[in-house]
């Protein structure tokens, strides 16, 4: 396995980490999860930096990563403290609870209440009276009842 293949592997890993982090950051509204996703993006970048450093035989990448780690540590402390304060004041971790920086005449974004999931009357397949109802697994009953 040559150097270039090694690099490719790590870069792919870094890109995957970054991409997962990005999707997490965009898709989730829990502030702690968003924070974790952001950390994950950082780590993805760090991995590619180290890989490039290894590839070019240069300490620059590693050095940068040390800095990133340091900054990430500080950032984590501050971010967690902020999240804690926000949680204390609103009792929620939902980032959408904090919309106060919008323009004054804009309507706030309100979650549309999802309609109560209609739990249909469980309809079981008609079976021949001759048959005996099979044993249902508990898991199927709890999570996928409506399927």
């Amino acid at each position, binding site marked *: 396995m040559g150097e270039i293949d090694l690099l490719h592997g790590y870069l792919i890993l870094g890109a995957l980490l970054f991409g997962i982090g990005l999707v997490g950051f965009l898709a989730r509204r829990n502030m702690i999860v968003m924070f974790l996703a952001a950390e994950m993006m950082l780590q993805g970048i760090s991995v590619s930096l180290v890989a490039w450093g290894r590839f070019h035989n240069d300490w620059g990448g590693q050095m940068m990563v040390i800095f990133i780690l340091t900054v990430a540590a500080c950032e984590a402390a501050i971010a967690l403290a902020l999240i804690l304060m926000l949680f204390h004041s609103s009792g929620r971790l939902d*980032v959408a609870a904090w919309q106060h920086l919008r323009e004054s*005449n804009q309507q706030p974004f309100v979650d549309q209440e999802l309609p109560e999931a209609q739990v249909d009357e469980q309809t079981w397949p008609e079976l021949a009276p001759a048959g005996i109802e099979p044993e249902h697994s508990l898991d199927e009953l709890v999570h996928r009842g409506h399927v």
Partner: protein
Amino acid sequence: MFEGDKIHLLMVLIPALPLASTLIVAALGKFVLRERSHLPVIAAMAGSFVLSLLLLYEVHHRTLAAEAGANATTESAATETAPAGGASAITVARHGVEEVYTLWTWAAIDREYARGPENVDSTAAPTDVAGQEFNFIVDVTLRADPLTAIMLCVVTFVSTLVMIYAVGYMHDDPSYWRFFTYMSLFVFSMTMLVSASNFVMLYVFWEAVGVSSYLLVGFWFEKPSAVAAGKKAFLVNRVGDFGLAIAIFLIWVTYGTLNFHDTPAADNVPAVAGILGQLRLSTPELYVGGAVGLAICLCLLTGACGKSAQFPLHVWLPDAMEGPTPVSALMHAATMVTAGVYMIARCTPLFMASPQAQEAVAVVGGFTALFAALIAITQTDLKRVLAYSTISQLGYMFLGLGVGTVAGISAGMFHLFTHAFFKALLFLAAGSVMHAMGGVIDMRRIGGLRHLMPKTCWTFWFGALALSGVFPFAGFWSKDAIIASAGERGDAGSMLYTVLFWASLFTAFLTALYTFRGLFLTFYGRQRIAPEAGHHAHESPSVMTLPLAILAFCALLAGAVFDWHGMFAKFLGHTPSLAYSLVEATAPHGEHSHLGLAVLSTFVALSGVGLAAYLYLGDRKAVEGLTTWLSSPFGLKLYQLSYGKFFIDEIYQWTIVRPLLLLGNVFSWLDRTLVDGLVNVAGGLPPRVGALLRPLQMGLVPFYALVMMLGTLVLIGALFMWPTG
């Protein structure tokens, strides 16, 4: 007694002291000096007056030396040494005594930039400097000569007394310090105006005097009438100042310099002959006459008319009564209205070169004197009577200057000198009455105050006698001299001056009539005290009556003492502008006494006094004929014409003010609709665009994150797509 440096020090200190007191009171008056604000100002004024006296003494000393020198040496020798004397060397020159001291250069523009007189008329400039382009250099230059020395003494003397008087008059004013700051600035401007030795400095301080008068007339700015009067004074003066500015431009184009004095030759720089300098005075043909000269002189006259309140620009002076009375006294006697007379006297050589302009000066003066006197006889406001009498007396001064002879010019200046004393006296006495009557000065509402205010009454008597020209009071000597000089020109065959002579004699009669009308109505008859007076109705404090007494003394003696053997005229004749061949040629041959005229004018004045006494002191029944005549339609019209000041204000209102207001309204409408509309469109655009973008700022963090990511993607995409190289 003095070396050159000492006279220079005097010349600098005389204006510097009022300037220093202005700055001190302006800086400390409000919080530190407060009701002691007058102290630095009075100290500075008195100091300036003492220094002015020293300067006068020194200049006089030199005129004596010059006379001795002129007798001892032949004229040709003196002429040769004159140009070599230089600007700041001690000059005992052929043409009068002058001392010039340059402090610093204010502006120096090379001839490449200052396209001066390219087409200099070769007759306009001395042969050694003809045809060359001059550098435009404006120096801060002070001068001392007899004219300046006399003006400085008058200004500082009257100012000192007025300031002392103002301590009593203004004692409970909340803006005490502001008053003294402005007054001090006023005096500083005037001392610089008469000390300036080039037209630019003259113009600068001409304006500074206007600004100070604006500030002082509008001193009580809570009163709308005071604000309006200040604005009117300033705007009417603008018209005159415009004329002066044009005159200065014309002088620069014609003569290539704005200095009064000669600039001696230096390295690479040839000598420049000043407008009123020795070089030019020794060859009077160098003064430009004809159309250009006439234009210069008429523009100068316009400027002087504005500042000295001559017809048709006299309308601001009576309204300027809205200021505190000490301001009126200062303005009428010393610091403001005399500026025009001074400037015309200073520019005598220019006026000698165009006789029509000189006649214009005389006509303006003579007409204004008569015109203002006709208005003054019916005014009911004592201060307004005095204001019109000032205009009238200034008309006399202009008439004297317009006569254009040694006798006429020196008589005009002498009238300025004596008038300063008795007009300051009359105004301060009127102010004393006003102070006692709680601000009421309307003669229909007050009267018979002679027992209440004996000191004010007898000082007013002195002023009134001097103003009427009764022997031996000051006004007699100067007014008589002006009338006599006009009469002489008339005798010499000029019809115009004969008319002016009779007009001025009639004006003298009117002067006595209106002055004593004011005196009798205010101080005699049944005692009437305005209800506004309150507890104030008593004689003014001695800080106010002492200056009155001093001025009364001067009003009695100034004429007789200074006219002794023509001393004033002889001294004034040493001013360079007056000490050259054209003027000297007009000197009367041999001693000439005007005994007959003196008797005549005294008789005229006394008959005016007598008529006033007959009309206003005597039995009402005795004058019934007159009152019935005045009630007839024709008499009533005449009366209204005079009482309405010949409706000059109304004429200006309808011919100038209203059309301008209309024009202003049109432009205002255009501005509000067109210009403001454009601006509003420009101002309205950003909010509209902003409103379009505003929904983006929804405050939802995940949305921001998404937009940020998309933006980054766009940037990265652009980076790849961008054509490199």
